[in-house]
């Protein structure tokens, strides 16, 4: 089979690097507001009906949205096996906490209103809160750690090893810079959830969401700016020291990597990437203004642009690095040396080109069917069937 050679290996790698971004952004744009709504639940809903209203704005769609997360896992496995192997086992306990959150959240949505007991419902509401807030924070912390590099090295047979005892592996993730990025991530998704609630709910719930979203939007912008300053001043970057072989076999140990003063040198090499952080600020700022001004659809769209910009910023700043290693820079995973084989990348691209448009089409149709606000009457009149 030579068909796959129609697209050269390095091009496929860049495409899959971009698709990795598409998946992360797709996840943040869709399941992001589900998580945001969950995390906002105790603050926007002061009684059972209000909380049910908030939950039912995402009730019919969170399940499909969550697939972005699962597909993200599957796609990293298929296209970037070393990344899948190194990161999930390296961030083991953090991953376990994320899994716990993503297991409890579906159950909370589905079971919460199946019993009348207020204790029962309160317990599930806290589960929805944790199921939204905890992963939102951890994903940010993870990004903060990826930017700093993770303490792993690969043996000669490419077996991933980690340095440090398990508690330092877990607690070490919670360093100040990573926590700052975690706060940005949480605030970003809270703002997104608020924008969604403004669009899909009404009355007190929408009003409270508007007020909270305004504050979290500002926190997002300040935090994003601070992270940038910190990256410039206090975080070392990485660079390929050996000649770049973009078409070679995927063996991370074949290239030589050195530490540099800062990641931000990328902005002098590829000045155009400044567009990403500009989108990040601009989108978030306009979303904040939209929340103030009372626009609904616009606010959500601006919030999406902001998220798109902020996540792209991370990827574009680090390119071609995906997961650098602090203890053995040569083990760092880059776009050029940690992908699947040429054939697998090609096949997966074809499959994606067939199914991604279909997914977007039917998902849009579902959102169209469900268009409109969830009202208090919707909840009380269909009390037996809605969440």
């Amino acid at each position, binding site marked *: 089979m030579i068909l796959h050679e129609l697209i050269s290996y390095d091009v496929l790698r860049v495409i899959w690097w971009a698709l990795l971004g598409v998946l992360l952004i797709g996840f943040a744009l869709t399941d992001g507001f589900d998580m945001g709504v969950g995390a906002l639940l105790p603050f926007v809903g002061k009684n059972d009906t209000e909380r049910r209203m908030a939950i039912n704005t995402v009730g019919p769609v969170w399940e499909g949205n969550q*697939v972005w997360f699962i597909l993200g896992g599957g796609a990293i*496995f298929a296209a970037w096996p070393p990344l899948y192997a190194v990161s999930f086992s390296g961030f083991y306990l953090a991953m376990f906490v994320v899994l716990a959150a993503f297991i409890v959240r579906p*159950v909370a949505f589905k079971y919460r209103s*199946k019993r009348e007991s207020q204790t029962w419902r309160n317990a599930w509401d806290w589960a929805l809160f944790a199921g939204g807030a905890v992963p939102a924070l951890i994903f940010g912390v993870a990004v903060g750690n990826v930017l700093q590099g993770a303490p792993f090295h690969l043996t000669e047979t490419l*077996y991933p090893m980690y340095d440090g005892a398990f508690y330092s592996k877990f607690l070490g993730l919670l360093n100040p810079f990573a926590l700052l990025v975690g706060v940005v991530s949480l605030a970003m998704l809270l703002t997104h959830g608020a924008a969604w609630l403004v669009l899909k709910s009404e009355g007190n719930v929408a009003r409270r969401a508007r007020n909270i979203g305004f504050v979290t939007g500002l926190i997002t912008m300040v935090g994003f700016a601070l992270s940038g300053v910190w990256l410039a001043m206090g975080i070392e970057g990485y660079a390929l020291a050996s000649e770049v072989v973009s078409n070679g076999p995927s063996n991370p140990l074949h290239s030589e990597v050195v530490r540099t003063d800062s990641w931000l040198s990328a902005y002098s090499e590829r000045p155009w990437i400044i567009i990403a952080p500009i989108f990040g600020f601009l989108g978030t700022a306009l979303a904040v203004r939209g929340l103030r001004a009372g626009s609904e659809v616009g606010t959500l769209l601006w919030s999406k642009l902001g998220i798109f910009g902020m996540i792209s910023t991370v990827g574009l700043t680090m390119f071609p690095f995906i997961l650098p290693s602090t203890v053995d820079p040569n083990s760092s995973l880059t776009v050029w040396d940690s992908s699947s084989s040429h054939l*697998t990348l090609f096949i997966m691209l074809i*499959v994606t080109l067939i199914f991604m448009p279909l997914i977007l089409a039917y998902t849009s149709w*579902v959102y169209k069917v*469900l268009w409109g606000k969830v009202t208090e009457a919707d909840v009380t009149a269909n009390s037996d069937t809605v969440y």
Partner: protein
Amino acid sequence: MELDVVELSRLQFAMTAMYHFLFVPLTLGLSIIVAIMETVYVMTNRPIWRQMTKFWGTLFGINFVLGVATGITMEFQFGMNWSYYSHYVGDIFGAPLAIEGLMAFFLEATFVGLFFFGWDKLSKRAHLMVAWLVAIGSNFSALWILIANGWMQNPVGAEFNPVTMRMEMTSFFEVLFNEVAQAKFVHTVSAGYVTAAVFVMGVSAWYLLKGRHIDLARRSIAVASSFGLASALSVVILGDESGYSATHSQQMKLAAIEAMWHTEEAPASFTLVGIPDQEARETHFAVHIPWAMGLIGTRSLDDEIPGINELEARANERIRSGIIAYDALETIRVDREATDPAVMATFEEHSADLGFAFLLLRYLDDPREATDEQIAMAAEDTIPGVMPLFWAFRIMVVLGFAFIGMMAYFFYRASFCGMQFPRWALIGAVAVIPTPWIAAEMGWFVAEFGRQPWTVDGVLPTALSVSHLGATELLITIAGFMLFYSVLFVIEMGLMVKYIRKGPYMDVEETDAWMARHEHRLRTHDGNVPDVTGPAATPAE
């Protein structure tokens, strides 16, 4: 790489996978049964069928969500707990998992919300389409997962690349049309259909015993028994197909299941029952059926099926050949492009046995220094635990045949005896509700435990597949999963029981009124009293 980390990783995987599969079979089958019921509703316009769709749909939803939630663990724990496995075979194994997400899981998860929330927002036909898309999505999910699992049992379409130190795909079509995967897929989804059929029949039988919701219960039994009969036949036939394909691709597993210690003269006999003794390599109190094994396994009278002792001897040879490959690989890794072509040729000649050399890593760091004794020990390791496999398999098969009998009986009574079921049969149907789950878990046990000591048969040993983790981390997550999953199980069972006791609660008045008119109409016709002027209550029908 301490042994306890390997054992703990296996324990965690077995626990979370088997727990996941408590929910999956019911999702697979019930999604289709619900879609069938809704199809009848749309075709006949009879409200009772809509009520059935909604009632079984509610139970489907309670079960579905746990299948989804516990599936998330499955998608991520290869990377978390099996990082060398993920690196080593991700190039092949990752693809079907990702395609499952793209093609199947997105479909079912996007539409399942609309199934529950869309009754008033969609036309009848559009809602029916949504129900079928959920069912199709669920079943496609199973297809891709079993293609991935089938590759672990029979790794085709891939070869080892010494530069990247991993298996890489050479033919996607071979991976896709792997005969093991195809047989497994149909066998597994059919088992799911049987599970759902037994569940629907059991719950309905309970209603009939209690004298509640008779109309719903009888119709549900009619659907479930016909669907279940076809599926139960398919499970057994495709199970046999799996056995046949195992004859050439997974010989050790087959020999262990049958406790075939020695190669017998063809056609081999089938050991019906007995007590396998792995130490002594014999089966005590064995009851044999002459010829049966040879016929099932080879579908011929003169092909031999190799026994465990012979397979162990072959493993011994493959380990020795693997050591040669390992030695060549060490040179290739250092010399890279400059490798002597003769070494390259040696490697290619023996690379299919490389995985066998890895079996020695349990005993020493460098397989090239292995003694004959160590090689013999590694060869013995290729024999899985015979006793548990022998019995798990037999329990599964007996249950499989029992389901055919049960379905056939209920199908007969539903079709030809006016939906009248004797009390003992109804009590029996309630009592056997848990058995399909037992059969399904036994089936997975046979498939996965029977593949040991490999994660990928003949390619990568389980002991080498694990992540570089400490026992403490694993104990934390195992305790976490146990606690978490137990609580969820209790909650789920509680809700299931609550909603079964509650019975159908949607569209009750409309359905009851229609049923009353429907029965009246049947009576007036059956009684041969043409009552043209009777209650004009059925204009819509």
